[in-house]
Protein backbone atom coordinates (compact mmCIF):
# COMPACT_ATOMS: atom_id res chain seq x y z
CA UNK A 1 0.00 0.00 0.00
CA UNK A 2 1.34 3.42 -0.94
CA UNK A 3 1.45 5.95 1.91
CA UNK A 4 1.84 9.55 0.86
CA UNK A 5 2.85 12.62 2.88
CA UNK A 6 2.65 16.11 1.37
CA UNK A 7 4.25 19.18 2.91
CA UNK A 8 5.89 22.49 2.03
CA UNK A 9 9.61 23.19 2.32
CA UNK A 10 12.40 25.02 0.48
CA UNK A 11 9.80 27.23 -1.19
CA UNK A 12 8.21 24.23 -2.93
CA UNK A 13 5.60 21.56 -2.58
CA UNK A 14 7.16 18.30 -1.40
CA UNK A 15 5.91 14.74 -1.13
CA UNK A 16 7.21 11.47 0.21
CA UNK A 17 5.74 8.13 -0.78
CA UNK A 18 6.41 4.83 0.92
CA UNK A 19 5.14 1.41 -0.10
CA UNK A 20 4.49 -0.63 3.05
CA UNK A 21 1.69 -2.66 4.61
CA UNK A 22 1.15 -0.42 7.65
CA UNK A 23 1.70 3.32 8.00
CA UNK A 24 5.41 3.77 8.66
CA UNK A 25 6.20 6.18 11.54
CA UNK A 26 9.35 7.31 9.76
CA UNK A 27 7.25 9.03 7.10
CA UNK A 28 6.12 11.65 9.62
CA UNK A 29 9.77 12.58 10.26
CA UNK A 30 10.43 13.73 6.70
CA UNK A 31 9.27 17.37 7.12
CA UNK A 32 11.63 17.78 10.10
CA UNK A 33 14.55 16.53 7.97
CA UNK A 34 13.76 19.09 5.32
CA UNK A 35 13.44 21.84 7.92
CA UNK A 36 16.92 21.02 9.21
CA UNK A 37 18.36 21.04 5.69
CA UNK A 38 16.59 24.26 4.80
CA UNK A 39 17.90 25.98 7.93
CA UNK A 40 21.41 25.08 6.82
CA UNK A 41 21.08 25.70 3.09
CA UNK A 42 18.58 28.51 2.49
CA UNK A 43 19.84 31.83 1.20
CA UNK A 44 16.53 33.43 2.16
CA UNK A 45 17.06 32.91 5.90
CA UNK A 46 19.46 35.45 7.34
CA UNK A 47 20.42 33.10 10.16
CA UNK A 48 21.00 30.05 7.96
CA UNK A 49 24.43 28.47 7.83
CA UNK A 50 24.67 29.40 4.16
CA UNK A 51 23.94 33.07 4.85
CA UNK A 52 26.60 33.13 7.56
CA UNK A 53 29.07 31.43 5.20
CA UNK A 54 28.28 33.92 2.42
CA UNK A 55 28.92 36.73 4.88
CA UNK A 56 32.43 35.49 5.62
CA UNK A 57 33.95 35.49 2.15
CA UNK A 58 37.71 35.56 2.27
CA UNK A 59 38.11 33.33 5.32
CA UNK A 60 38.03 29.57 5.91
CA UNK A 61 34.79 28.75 7.72
CA UNK A 62 34.13 25.41 9.47
CA UNK A 63 30.88 23.97 8.09
CA UNK A 64 28.38 21.30 9.11
CA UNK A 65 28.22 17.87 7.52
CA UNK A 66 25.08 18.97 5.63
CA UNK A 67 26.84 21.99 4.13
CA UNK A 68 29.91 19.92 3.29
CA UNK A 69 27.87 17.19 1.60
CA UNK A 70 25.84 19.64 -0.49
CA UNK A 71 29.02 21.49 -1.43
CA UNK A 72 30.46 18.19 -2.68
CA UNK A 73 27.23 17.52 -4.58
CA UNK A 74 27.63 20.95 -6.19
CA UNK A 75 31.17 20.10 -7.23
CA UNK A 76 29.85 16.91 -8.85
CA UNK A 77 27.13 18.89 -10.65
CA UNK A 78 29.64 21.42 -11.92
CA UNK A 79 31.88 18.66 -13.26
CA UNK A 80 28.97 16.74 -14.78
CA UNK A 81 27.70 19.79 -16.63
CA UNK A 82 31.03 21.24 -17.71
CA UNK A 83 30.52 24.26 -15.47
CA UNK A 84 27.02 25.12 -16.69
CA UNK A 85 25.54 24.40 -13.27
CA UNK A 86 27.34 26.12 -10.41
CA UNK A 87 26.13 27.50 -7.09
CA UNK A 88 28.20 30.66 -7.60
CA UNK A 89 25.43 32.45 -9.44
CA UNK A 90 23.89 34.30 -6.52
CA UNK A 91 25.09 37.71 -7.63
CA UNK A 92 23.76 37.10 -11.13
CA UNK A 93 20.39 36.10 -9.70
CA UNK A 94 20.27 39.23 -7.58
CA UNK A 95 21.24 41.39 -10.56
CA UNK A 96 18.47 39.74 -12.56
CA UNK A 97 15.99 40.74 -9.83
CA UNK A 98 15.54 37.43 -7.97
CA UNK A 99 16.37 39.07 -4.64
CA UNK A 100 13.82 37.41 -2.40
CA UNK A 101 12.02 34.10 -2.14
CA UNK A 102 9.83 33.59 -5.18
CA UNK A 103 6.58 33.68 -3.18
CA UNK A 104 7.58 37.18 -2.09
CA UNK A 105 8.68 38.35 -5.50
CA UNK A 106 5.33 40.11 -5.67
CA UNK A 107 6.19 43.05 -7.88
CA UNK A 108 9.14 44.53 -9.65
CA UNK A 109 10.69 47.10 -7.37
CA UNK A 110 13.77 47.50 -9.49
CA UNK A 111 12.31 47.84 -12.93
CA UNK A 112 14.09 51.10 -13.65
CA UNK A 113 17.50 49.75 -12.75
CA UNK A 114 19.81 48.89 -15.62
CA UNK A 115 20.69 45.27 -16.32
CA UNK A 116 24.04 43.99 -15.15
CA UNK A 117 25.81 40.80 -16.03
CA UNK A 118 27.57 39.39 -12.99
CA UNK A 119 30.89 37.63 -13.20
CA UNK A 120 30.34 33.99 -12.31
CA UNK A 121 33.35 32.16 -10.94
CA UNK A 122 33.93 28.43 -10.59
CA UNK A 123 33.93 26.25 -7.50
CA UNK A 124 37.60 25.64 -8.32
CA UNK A 125 38.19 29.12 -6.88
CA UNK A 126 36.69 28.05 -3.55
CA UNK A 127 39.14 26.80 -0.91
CA UNK A 128 37.64 23.61 0.51
CA UNK A 129 39.68 21.71 3.11
CA UNK A 130 38.33 18.17 3.62
CA UNK A 131 40.43 17.40 6.69
CA UNK A 132 39.32 20.52 8.55
CA UNK A 133 35.91 20.54 6.81
CA UNK A 134 36.17 24.24 6.04
CA UNK A 135 35.01 26.25 3.06
CA UNK A 136 36.61 29.54 2.09
CA UNK A 137 34.82 31.63 -0.51
CA UNK A 138 36.79 34.09 -2.60
CA UNK A 139 36.04 37.77 -1.99
CA UNK A 140 32.81 38.79 -3.65
CA UNK A 141 31.62 35.20 -4.21
CA UNK A 142 28.38 33.88 -2.75
CA UNK A 143 26.77 30.48 -2.89
CA UNK A 144 23.20 29.63 -3.83
CA UNK A 145 22.61 25.89 -3.87
CA UNK A 146 19.10 26.18 -5.29
CA UNK A 147 18.15 23.08 -7.23
CA UNK A 148 21.23 21.14 -6.14
CA UNK A 149 19.97 21.30 -2.56
CA UNK A 150 16.54 20.01 -3.60
CA UNK A 151 17.97 17.11 -5.58
CA UNK A 152 20.32 16.27 -2.73
CA UNK A 153 17.48 16.47 -0.17
CA UNK A 154 15.23 14.20 -2.26
CA UNK A 155 18.04 11.66 -2.51
CA UNK A 156 18.87 11.85 1.21
CA UNK A 157 15.25 11.44 2.28
CA UNK A 158 14.78 8.51 -0.09
CA UNK A 159 17.91 6.82 1.30
CA UNK A 160 16.56 7.16 4.84
CA UNK A 161 13.08 5.95 3.94
CA UNK A 162 13.97 2.92 1.84
CA UNK A 163 14.65 0.72 4.86
CA UNK A 164 10.89 0.85 5.55
CA UNK A 165 9.93 -0.07 1.98
CA UNK A 166 10.16 1.14 -1.61
CA UNK A 167 10.26 4.92 -1.43
CA UNK A 168 9.85 7.93 -3.66
CA UNK A 169 10.65 11.50 -2.59
CA UNK A 170 9.68 14.48 -4.69
CA UNK A 171 11.38 17.75 -3.75
CA UNK A 172 9.72 20.36 -5.92
CA UNK A 173 9.96 18.27 -9.08
CA UNK A 174 13.31 16.63 -8.29
CA UNK A 175 12.41 12.98 -7.67
CA UNK A 176 14.45 10.18 -6.11
CA UNK A 177 13.20 6.59 -6.33
CA UNK A 178 14.66 3.71 -4.33
CA UNK A 179 13.37 0.75 -6.36
CA UNK A 180 10.24 -0.88 -7.80
CA UNK A 181 7.08 -1.10 -5.74
CA UNK A 182 6.47 -4.18 -3.63
CA UNK A 183 4.33 -5.68 -6.38
CA UNK A 184 7.18 -5.14 -8.83
CA UNK A 185 5.53 -2.29 -10.68
CA UNK A 186 7.34 0.83 -11.75
CA UNK A 187 6.45 4.25 -10.35
CA UNK A 188 4.45 6.45 -12.75
CA UNK A 189 5.78 10.00 -13.00
CA UNK A 190 3.68 12.58 -14.78
CA UNK A 191 5.36 15.52 -16.48
CA UNK A 192 3.49 18.76 -15.82
CA UNK A 193 2.19 20.69 -18.80
CA UNK A 194 4.20 23.94 -18.84
CA UNK A 195 1.52 25.64 -20.89
CA UNK A 196 -1.33 24.89 -18.53
CA UNK A 197 -0.79 24.01 -14.88
CA UNK A 198 -4.37 22.71 -14.62
CA UNK A 199 -4.09 20.44 -17.64
CA UNK A 200 -3.28 16.76 -17.73
CA UNK A 201 0.35 15.69 -17.81
CA UNK A 202 2.08 16.08 -21.16
CA UNK A 203 3.67 12.68 -20.68
CA UNK A 204 3.99 9.91 -18.12
CA UNK A 205 7.22 8.03 -17.56
CA UNK A 206 7.58 4.79 -15.61
CA UNK A 207 10.69 4.41 -13.47
CA UNK A 208 11.91 1.54 -11.32
CA UNK A 209 14.64 3.49 -9.61
CA UNK A 210 16.93 6.47 -9.99
CA UNK A 211 16.12 10.11 -10.48
CA UNK A 212 14.00 12.34 -12.64
CA UNK A 213 13.83 16.11 -12.57
CA UNK A 214 12.42 18.98 -14.53
CA UNK A 215 13.96 22.38 -14.98
CA UNK A 216 12.04 25.15 -16.65
CA UNK A 217 11.46 28.81 -17.17
CA UNK A 218 7.69 28.43 -17.20
CA UNK A 219 7.15 29.36 -13.58
CA UNK A 220 9.97 31.16 -11.75
CA UNK A 221 10.13 34.22 -13.91
CA UNK A 222 9.41 37.89 -13.54
CA UNK A 223 9.46 41.12 -15.48
CA UNK A 224 12.19 43.71 -15.09
CA UNK A 225 12.57 46.80 -17.23
CA UNK A 226 9.76 45.34 -19.33
CA UNK A 227 11.89 42.28 -20.10
CA UNK A 228 11.03 38.85 -18.88
CA UNK A 229 13.64 37.28 -16.63
CA UNK A 230 13.95 33.78 -15.23
CA UNK A 231 16.04 32.02 -12.63
CA UNK A 232 18.19 29.84 -14.87
CA UNK A 233 21.46 31.72 -15.14
CA UNK A 234 23.97 30.96 -17.87
CA UNK A 235 27.35 31.20 -16.09
CA UNK A 236 29.03 32.02 -19.40
CA UNK A 237 27.14 35.30 -19.66
CA UNK A 238 26.04 35.96 -16.09
CA UNK A 239 22.51 36.55 -17.40
CA UNK A 240 19.32 34.48 -17.56
CA UNK A 241 19.91 31.84 -20.22
CA UNK A 242 18.64 32.49 -23.72
CA UNK A 243 17.15 29.17 -24.68
CA UNK A 244 14.44 27.75 -26.91
CA UNK A 245 13.46 25.21 -24.25
CA UNK A 246 10.54 25.88 -21.93
CA UNK A 247 11.03 22.81 -19.73
CA UNK A 248 13.57 20.01 -19.75
CA UNK A 249 12.82 16.71 -18.01
CA UNK A 250 15.75 14.37 -17.50
CA UNK A 251 15.89 10.78 -16.25
CA UNK A 252 19.27 9.90 -14.73
CA UNK A 253 20.78 7.44 -12.23
CA UNK A 254 20.26 9.89 -9.31
CA UNK A 255 18.04 12.87 -8.56
CA UNK A 256 21.11 15.13 -8.24
CA UNK A 257 22.34 14.18 -11.70
CA UNK A 258 18.86 14.54 -13.19
CA UNK A 259 18.47 18.01 -11.66
CA UNK A 260 21.89 19.22 -12.77
CA UNK A 261 21.53 17.88 -16.29
CA UNK A 262 18.00 19.25 -16.71
CA UNK A 263 19.30 22.72 -15.87
CA UNK A 264 22.39 22.34 -18.08
CA UNK A 265 20.21 21.24 -21.00
CA UNK A 266 17.92 24.22 -20.42
CA UNK A 267 20.96 26.48 -20.72
CA UNK A 268 22.41 24.62 -23.71
CA UNK A 269 19.27 24.79 -25.83
CA UNK A 270 17.39 22.00 -27.58
CA UNK A 271 19.98 21.00 -30.14
CA UNK A 272 22.92 20.54 -27.77
CA UNK A 273 20.60 19.30 -25.04
CA UNK A 274 19.13 16.50 -27.10
CA UNK A 275 22.62 15.53 -28.28
CA UNK A 276 23.71 15.24 -24.65
CA UNK A 277 20.77 12.98 -23.81
CA UNK A 278 21.29 10.82 -26.88
CA UNK A 279 25.00 10.51 -26.21
CA UNK A 280 24.65 8.79 -22.84
CA UNK A 281 22.81 5.49 -22.42
CA UNK A 282 22.15 6.25 -18.75
CA UNK A 283 20.11 9.32 -19.64
CA UNK A 284 16.73 9.94 -21.21
CA UNK A 285 14.49 12.94 -21.38
CA UNK A 286 11.80 15.11 -22.82
CA UNK A 287 12.24 18.71 -23.93
CA UNK A 288 9.19 20.94 -24.30
CA UNK A 289 10.10 23.89 -26.49
CA UNK A 290 8.80 27.45 -26.41
CA UNK A 291 6.92 26.79 -29.64
CA UNK A 292 5.10 23.83 -28.09
CA UNK A 293 7.14 21.16 -29.84
CA UNK A 294 8.16 18.14 -27.79
CA UNK A 295 11.50 16.43 -28.33
CA UNK A 296 12.12 12.96 -26.91
CA UNK A 297 15.55 11.44 -26.48
CA UNK A 298 16.31 8.28 -28.44
CA UNK A 299 16.32 5.97 -25.42
CA UNK A 300 13.06 7.18 -23.89
CA UNK A 301 11.16 4.06 -25.00
CA UNK A 302 12.18 2.15 -21.89
CA UNK A 303 10.35 4.64 -19.71
CA UNK A 304 7.04 4.82 -21.58
Amino acid at each position, binding site marked *: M*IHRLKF*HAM*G*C*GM*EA*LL*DSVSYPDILAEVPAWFEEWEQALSRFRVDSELSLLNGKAGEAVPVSQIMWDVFQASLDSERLTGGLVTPLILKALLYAGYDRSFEN*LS*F*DTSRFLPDFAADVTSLKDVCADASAQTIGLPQGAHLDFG*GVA*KGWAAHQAMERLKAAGPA*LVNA*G*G*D*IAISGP*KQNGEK*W*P*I*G*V*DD*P*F*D*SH*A*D*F*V*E*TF*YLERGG*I*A*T*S*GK*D*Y*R*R*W*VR*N*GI*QKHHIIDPRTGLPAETDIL*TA*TVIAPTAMEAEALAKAIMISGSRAGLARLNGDTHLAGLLVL*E*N*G*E*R*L*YSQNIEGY*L
Partner: protein
Amino acid sequence: MQNRSKSWADIQMIISSIAVAVTMGFWSLFSSSQKLTAGAAGTANLSDQSDSSHATASNDMLLPGQVMLLNGSQSPTPAAQQTVPAKKPSVRRNNGGGGGGSSGGGSHTGSSKP
Protein backbone atom coordinates in the same frame (compact mmCIF):
# COMPACT_ATOMS: atom_id res chain seq x y z
CA MET B 1 53.17 90.87 -45.08
CA GLN B 2 50.81 93.55 -43.95
CA ASN B 3 48.28 92.37 -46.56
CA ARG B 4 48.56 88.81 -45.31
CA SER B 5 47.88 89.78 -41.68
CA LYS B 6 44.94 91.86 -42.85
CA SER B 7 43.47 88.93 -44.74
CA TRP B 8 43.96 86.64 -41.69
CA ALA B 9 42.06 89.21 -39.62
CA ASP B 10 39.29 89.10 -42.20
CA ILE B 11 39.13 85.30 -42.01
CA GLN B 12 38.96 85.46 -38.22
CA MET B 13 36.13 87.95 -38.50
CA ILE B 14 34.25 85.69 -40.91
CA ILE B 15 34.69 82.63 -38.67
CA SER B 16 33.48 84.59 -35.65
CA SER B 17 30.47 85.83 -37.57
CA ILE B 18 29.56 82.33 -38.70
CA ALA B 19 29.94 80.97 -35.15
CA VAL B 20 27.71 83.71 -33.75
CA ALA B 21 25.16 83.16 -36.50
CA VAL B 22 25.07 79.39 -35.95
CA THR B 23 24.76 79.83 -32.19
CA MET B 24 21.91 82.28 -32.58
CA GLY B 25 20.26 80.01 -35.10
CA PHE B 26 20.31 76.99 -32.79
CA TRP B 27 19.17 79.15 -29.86
CA SER B 28 16.26 80.34 -31.89
CA LEU B 29 15.43 76.83 -33.08
CA PHE B 30 15.40 75.16 -29.65
CA SER B 31 13.74 78.11 -27.99
CA SER B 32 10.83 77.97 -30.42
CA SER B 33 10.65 74.17 -30.09
CA GLN B 34 10.25 74.44 -26.31
CA LYS B 35 7.64 77.14 -26.64
CA LEU B 36 5.68 75.10 -29.13
CA THR B 37 5.81 71.99 -26.99
CA ALA B 38 4.90 73.78 -23.79
CA GLY B 39 2.12 75.74 -25.39
CA ALA B 40 0.74 72.83 -27.36
CA ALA B 41 0.88 74.99 -30.46
CA GLY B 42 2.27 73.86 -33.77
CA THR B 43 2.35 70.40 -35.23
CA ALA B 44 5.82 69.36 -36.28
CA ASN B 45 7.43 69.73 -32.88
CA LEU B 46 4.40 68.30 -31.14
CA SER B 47 4.65 65.12 -33.13
CA ASP B 48 8.25 64.72 -31.97
CA GLN B 49 7.11 65.21 -28.41
CA SER B 50 4.33 62.67 -28.74
CA ASP B 51 6.79 60.14 -30.14
CA SER B 52 9.03 60.42 -27.12
CA SER B 53 6.15 60.18 -24.65
CA HIS B 54 4.87 57.15 -26.51
CA ALA B 55 8.23 55.44 -26.07
CA THR B 56 8.10 56.11 -22.34
CA ALA B 57 4.57 54.82 -22.07
CA SER B 58 5.41 51.60 -23.87
CA ASN B 59 7.99 50.87 -21.20
CA ASP B 60 5.18 50.78 -18.63
CA MET B 61 2.73 49.07 -20.91
CA LEU B 62 0.68 46.41 -19.17
CA LEU B 63 1.44 42.87 -20.18
CA PRO B 64 -1.33 40.29 -20.50
CA GLY B 65 -2.51 39.28 -17.07
CA GLN B 66 -1.05 42.31 -15.33
CA VAL B 67 -3.12 44.72 -13.31
CA MET B 68 -2.22 48.37 -12.82
CA LEU B 69 -2.15 48.97 -9.10
CA LEU B 70 -3.51 52.16 -7.56
CA ASN B 71 -0.03 53.37 -6.67
CA GLY B 72 0.88 53.26 -10.32
CA SER B 73 3.00 50.15 -10.17
CA GLN B 74 2.21 46.97 -12.03
CA SER B 75 1.27 43.68 -10.54
CA PRO B 76 3.59 40.76 -11.27
CA THR B 77 2.69 39.00 -14.44
CA PRO B 78 1.37 35.56 -13.58
CA ALA B 79 3.84 33.17 -15.17
CA ALA B 80 1.14 30.86 -16.42
CA GLN B 81 -0.35 33.71 -18.39
CA GLN B 82 2.89 34.98 -19.87
CA THR B 83 4.16 34.28 -23.36
CA VAL B 84 2.12 31.15 -23.61
CA PRO B 85 1.91 30.10 -27.22
CA ALA B 86 -1.65 29.69 -28.32
CA LYS B 87 -1.18 26.35 -29.98
CA LYS B 88 0.42 23.26 -28.58
CA PRO B 89 1.34 20.96 -31.41
CA SER B 90 1.83 17.40 -30.35
CA VAL B 91 4.91 15.70 -31.69
CA ARG B 92 4.29 12.26 -30.33
CA ARG B 93 1.95 10.69 -27.84
CA ASN B 94 2.81 7.50 -26.00
CA ASN B 95 0.62 5.41 -23.71
CA GLY B 96 -2.04 8.04 -24.03
CA GLY B 97 0.35 10.72 -22.86
CA GLY B 98 -1.20 11.97 -19.63
CA GLY B 99 -2.61 10.03 -16.74
CA GLY B 100 -0.58 8.07 -14.23
CA GLY B 101 1.37 10.35 -11.94
CA SER B 102 -0.01 11.20 -8.55
CA SER B 103 -3.29 9.37 -8.86
CA GLY B 104 -1.61 6.12 -9.88
CA GLY B 105 0.54 5.76 -6.76
CA GLY B 106 3.24 7.84 -8.36
CA SER B 107 4.27 11.44 -8.52
CA HIS B 108 4.81 14.24 -10.99
CA THR B 109 7.64 16.50 -12.02
CA GLY B 110 7.68 20.05 -13.28
CA SER B 111 9.36 23.36 -12.58
CA SER B 112 9.50 23.75 -8.81
CA LYS B 113 6.39 25.50 -7.55
CA PRO B 114 5.19 26.38 -4.06
